[in-house]
């Protein structure tokens, strides 16, 4: 891809970019007009297999972005127990930019939990121990399939049967705006309030948004929402302001287990692939990545996940597609329909007897 200097304005300055609406896009920031020396695209890799559901991400996010308190239905300044396990946040919305989902499951067969990952690279220069070097034994242990105690001890107190077949699993996952490669919210925004930053993230500009609400309907993940009393829409900015100061987003900074990892997207993708391979090797068949594939319906997510169950279990769409993929077809239909209208009108008039 050739870059054109800003000194040559006009249509000649428009870069020849493929897949502007759909499909993989190697450099989202450049597509959005940034010079090639823009920062690398950053993102989140949320590894739910090490999430302890502490909600530090939710609080750190609200704290940094001074978001209002709300209940599990997004109602501002309201409180109430949701009855959904330990989730009283309920959903992502204008007031909650991180949402930790809690899923309680019990089932009748072996269901291994994964071994803890080693996210983050700080351990390389920190925390070496007398025990680590060349520890083949522990590695071998780590790769044993791990039985959940429930498998051994569960029984039904009503019937007295020893139920070695029932297991409990408690999944936790911190959801966030996906910062899609092809972001429906950004595409449909008529004011340019939503824009692609130099970091490749998608951010709402509060001084521009006029609350038309189009983005709310356009997000295939149900992330962005309007704050009723304010009128404008809000969502995760991946702490755009912090990024400009060289800091990590607040959620990733706080996360105690590094379930939320922030970094250059390509590096995160590598890390996630390795993590998935590790888990698979440990027999965690249910592990999978979500939003990591650049060929998916949104061109891959800037914030992607390692899940232990199907996406919809976590409240995520199983096959999200950016709505704008179909826009050319829609414009075509609208154009044809408009022409049709003129045709009908002309026919109607010409076909009518003049008085």
């Amino acid at each position, binding site marked *: 891809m050739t870059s*054109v200097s*800003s000194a040559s*304005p*006009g*249509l000649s*300055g*428009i*870069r020849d970019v493929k897949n*502007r609406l759909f499909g993989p896009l190697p450099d989202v*920031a450049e*597509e*959005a*007009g*940034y*010079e090639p020396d823009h920062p690398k695209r950053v993102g989140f890799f949320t590894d739910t297999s090490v999430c302890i559901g*502490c*909600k*530090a991400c*939710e*609080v*750190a996010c609200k*704290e*940094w972005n001074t978001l209002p308190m709300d209940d599990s239905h997004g109602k501002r300044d309201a409180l109430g127990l949701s009855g959904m396990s330990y989730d009283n946040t309920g959903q992502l919305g204008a007031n909650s930019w991180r949402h930790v989902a809690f899923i309680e499951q019990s089932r009748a067969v072996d269901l291994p939990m994964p071994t803890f990952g080693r996210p983050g690279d*700080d351990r390389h220069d*920190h925390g070496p121990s007398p025990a680590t070097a060349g520890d083949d034994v522990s590695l071998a242990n780590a790769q044993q399939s791990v039985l959940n105690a429930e498998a051994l001890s569960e029984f039904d107190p009503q019937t007295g049967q020893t139920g070695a077949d029932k297991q409990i699993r408690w999944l936790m996952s911190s959801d966030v705006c996906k910062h899609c490669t092809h972001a429906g919210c*950004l*595409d449909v925004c008529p004011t*340019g*309030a*939503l*824009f*692609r*930053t130099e970091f490749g993230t998608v*951010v709402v*500009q*509060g*001084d*521009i948004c006029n609350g038309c609400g189009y983005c709310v309907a356009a997000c295939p993940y149900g992330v962005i929402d309007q704050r009723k009393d304010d009128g404008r829409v809000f969502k995760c900015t991946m702490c*755009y*302001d*912090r990024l*400009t*100061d060289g*800091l990590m987003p*607040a959620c990733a*900074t*706080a*996360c*105690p287990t*590094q379930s939320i990892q922030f970094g250059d997207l390509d590096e995160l993708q590598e890390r996630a692939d390795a993590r998935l391979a590790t888990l698979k090797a440990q027999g965690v068949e249910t592990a999978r990545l979500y939003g990591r594939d650049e060929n998916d319906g949104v061109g891959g997510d800037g914030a992607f996940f390692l899940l232990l169950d199907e996406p919809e279990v976590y409240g995520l769409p199983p096959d999200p597609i950016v709505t704008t993929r179909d826009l050319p077809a829609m414009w075509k239909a609208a154009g044809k329909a408009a022409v049709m209208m003129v045709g009908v009108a002309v026919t109607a008039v010409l076909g009518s007897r003049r008085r």
Partner: protein
Amino acid sequence: MKTWLDSWPVYRQLTGSDPLGRGKAARSKGTESVVSRTATADRVVKSVCPYCAVGCGQKVYVQDEKITQIEGDPDSPISRGRLCPKGSASKQLVTSPTRVTTVKYRRPFGTDWEDLDLDTAMEMIADRVLEARRKGWQEEDGGKRVNRTMGLASLGGATLDNEENYLMKKLYSALGAVQIENQARI
């Protein structure tokens, strides 16, 4: 004219590298002037989280003598910069809307709080300490010398600093008060 036109994103769309108006062309004045409040802080003070006993390091950002941000201190070998939800919320300890920052006084059999000057309150408390000490004084108990007072008791939380605990124990002991307890019992 050029500047004026340049401030219109459509013009930037038509002339720049962002024809679809989804990125560079759409940037607003607000966005161009975004600055992290960590960058504008007057100072950063090192502290320790007051909740559980892990003792996570905290960085406290201060601007215009107000706390603008509290976050984990990555230098801490114990916490490595991470914080739990409570630690992440600890700025609200300072800024909580329901925090009470003036002395309140309820007189015996009173039905509501009254305001009280801090110095007056200190003097009143001193009076009452001396009186309670006198009332509960025991020179001996069970025939043994105890030189203490049973009229005063204290219960401290475990968010007290070591220095505070030390002064408390020192003062209470000098007063002869022994029923001095702490959350640590719980």
